[in-house]
């Protein structure tokens, strides 16, 4: 099908729409891209985006909207795309989502918006994520004029703790409502997991920086190097710094280790440490940047989530000859985004499925030389409904490697909560918040991973938005 001006303006029949196949996202060749940190996906061309948009059946009862945690009006923005009105499409998305360039790239669409798409029944879903990304990138290039706050200044001060997606979203919303907002960030750079966790090849840092710049354009102040709980406490924010409300969005940053022998050998990293060294500290450019990282020739990454995929693909880019995912369940059970698993496969990552490490082996000189593992088989379903992996007796074997990266999940970091008297946490240390995201302390709200446990960017953003609405209400009533 070739587009003409006529085609653009003509409304297609459902049959014609159904005849269009899902468009492909152009991406760089697996072997080539696995050697550098440039982005893997190249984005849709305008024509391709329009063609993909025309696949949308404009359902009356659009289930895709329910699949999106922030309920973007998906058919509406897709219609704008099909009409060639890309900035109009952006405006529709922006009503519900402040960071479309980010979510278009990192949302697990296959379990959210796209899995509810009606077209799943006939062939494959509309590429909602790719379209969202297309629109956001187009907007970035073509937007003119500055962001402005139109609401009258309220004179109320709000502190957001943490500059990940939850903190950024909340701060932006509150600023638009006329509040005076300051973000306090523990690291020297704002962005949370978007800058220290998710690598450049999946989410270019320039995109995150654009969003941070936008916030500053809206008048949000960002104070880095402030560790709330240490540099300042929450009571001090109210009593000494004059804040009227606080939003806690400090993420869940506490790495989990495997608790197997040998885990403290040199050459064993948590994924947090490995990715922080590489992404935030620029270790892949050592010695131009001073922070070193162990590169590894044969690398094992333990885990099956997005963090594991990011770590294993990073290790390949740092020059490893062989990079392997070691995961105790089956391939289909991995919680990582499907696209990341495909990309990892294309880049030559090995997958040792149904395998669990039992010991890290040392070389006698304090360095890792291998990972002793045991095979697993799938037993009865567990609470999560997934079949539980059980060890196969006597199936131990060794994988030779010189770097082990542990990516088996994160927990609540207690640094802030322990320094905040009266703040209720649950038995795992996550902050308890009510349906308005208010905590046990009046005027203190919380959202994102520190409330939900490790979740997703879009859920953290959704929390930021909900919190902003409720903080605004709270301040009005004060």
């Amino acid at each position, binding site marked *: 099908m070739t587009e003409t001006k006529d085609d653009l303006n003509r409304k297609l029949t459902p049959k014609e729409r159904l005849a269009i196949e899902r468009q492909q996202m152009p991406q760089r060749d697996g072997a080539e891209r696995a050697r550098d940190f440039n982005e893997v996906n190249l984005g849709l061309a305008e024509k391709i985006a329009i063609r993909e948009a025309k696949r949308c059946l404009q359902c009356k009862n659009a289930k895709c909207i329910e699949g999106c945690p922030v309920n973007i009006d998906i058919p509406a923005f897709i219609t704008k795309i099909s009409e060639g009105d890309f900035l109009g499409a952006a405006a529709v998305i922006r009503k519900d989502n402040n960071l479309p360039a980010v979510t278009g790239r990192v949302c697990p669409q296959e379990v959210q918006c796209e899995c509810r798409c009606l077209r799943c029944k006939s062939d494959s879903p509309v590429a909602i994520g790719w379209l969202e990304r297309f629109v956001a990138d187009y907007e970035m290039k073509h937007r003119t004029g500055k962001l402005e706050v139109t609401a009258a200044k309220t004179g109320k001060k709000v502190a957001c703790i943490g500059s990940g997606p939850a903190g950024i979203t909340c701060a932006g919303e509150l600023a638009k409502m006329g509040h005076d907002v300051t973000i306090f960030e*523990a690291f020297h750079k704002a962005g949370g997991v978007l800058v220290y966790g998710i690598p450049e090849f999946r989410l270019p840092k320039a995109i995150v920086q654009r969003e941070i710049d936008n916030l500053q354009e809206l008048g949000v102040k960002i104070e880095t190097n402030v560790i709330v709980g*240490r540099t300042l406490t929450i009571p001090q924010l109210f009593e000494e710094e004059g804040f009227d409300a606080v939003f806690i969005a400090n993420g869940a940053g506490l790495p989990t*280790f495997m608790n197997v022998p040998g885990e403290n050998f040199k050459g064993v*990293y948590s994924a*947090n440490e490995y990715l*922080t060294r590489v992404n935030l500290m620029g270790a892949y450019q050592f010695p131009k940047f*001073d*922070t070193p990282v162990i590169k590894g020739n044969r690398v094992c990454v333990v885990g099956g989530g997005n963090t594991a995929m990011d770590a294993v693909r990073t290790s390949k880019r740092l020059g490893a000859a062989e990079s392997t995912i070691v995961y105790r369940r089956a391939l289909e059970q991995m919680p990582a985004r499907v696209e990341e698993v495909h990309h990892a496969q294309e880049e030559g990552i090995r997958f040792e499925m149904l395998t669990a490490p039992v010991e890290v082996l040392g070389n006698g000189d304090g360095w890792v030389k291998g990972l002793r593992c045991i095979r697993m088989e799938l037993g009865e379903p567990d609470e999560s409904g997934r079949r539980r992996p059980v060890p196969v007796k006597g199936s131990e074997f060794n994988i030779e490697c010189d770097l082990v990266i542990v990516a088996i999940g994160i927990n609540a970091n207690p640094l802030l909560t322990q320094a905040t008297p009266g703040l209720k946490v649950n038995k795992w240390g996550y902050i308890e918040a009510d349906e308005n995201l208010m905590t046990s302390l009046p005027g203190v709200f919380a959202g994102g991973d520190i409330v939900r446990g490790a979740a997703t960017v879009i859920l953290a953003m959704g929390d930021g938005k909900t919190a902003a609405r409720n903080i605004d209400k709270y301040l009005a009533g004060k």
Partner: protein
Amino acid sequence: MYQVVDKQTIGPNLTQYEIMAPRIARARKCGQFVIVRPFAHSERIPLTVADTNPGKGTITLIVQTVGKTTLEMSQIEKGGAFQDVAGPLGMPSHIEKFGTVVVIGGGLGTAVIYPQAIALKEVGNKIVTIIGARTKDLLIMQDLLAKLSDQLIMTTDDGSSGKKGLVTHALQELIDDPNSRVDAVYCAGPVIMMKAVAQVTKPHNIPTIVSLNPVMVDGTGMCGGCRVTVGGKTKFACVDGPEFDGHQVDYDELMDRLTTYKPQEKNSLDQFKSHTCKCGRH
């Protein structure tokens, strides 16, 4: 940016910085440290807060030049600024009245034990300070410690000042001397020294607190790079420490982990030195 209000050379390769950081100056307790990134391309390095002046809003750091970051940092002059200073981090020192406390600093560890000695003195302990170094020039802060301590013992490996020998010899003598008491020991310095001190006090069951110095990144418990084994359990030194019960620490593991980046550190330092020679004033 964090302004360098004052800078002094206090010994060979030893620099004392006074940095403007009002919030840290106010919040900091004895035993805590900061993470400094002197330039935008630098590593994040942990440095103990040796002293504070909350009224003026400053903190004092005493830094030994050992590698690329600390060397490059030493080129920042008074009136200049550090890119990032974050803190205060770590648990404050455990301070209680024991009676007589022997405070031991080896080399740079002296900067770490100085604030502890002040705090221990304030709660009514008698302070016996032992400081040791390879040679006379490397002994630091003698005057300050002499004023503070009820007794100051200095040791050098080569006998160029004070007693010839190691701090552990001086400590053993104190323990063996029927006329003196040792109710607790606080110690900071090279890992090998802390290990030796703990070995001396262990048979006598003298409470011994050591200050550990693993490689750190964030300093907030987020990366696990600073993990040490204490009493058979993994601890994160940046949030659970940096001070621990000296009798429980796995020193060999710590010493080994500290060598992780040796080749990279050397490479980085060599490149930096050759670079400065080419474009410097030479």
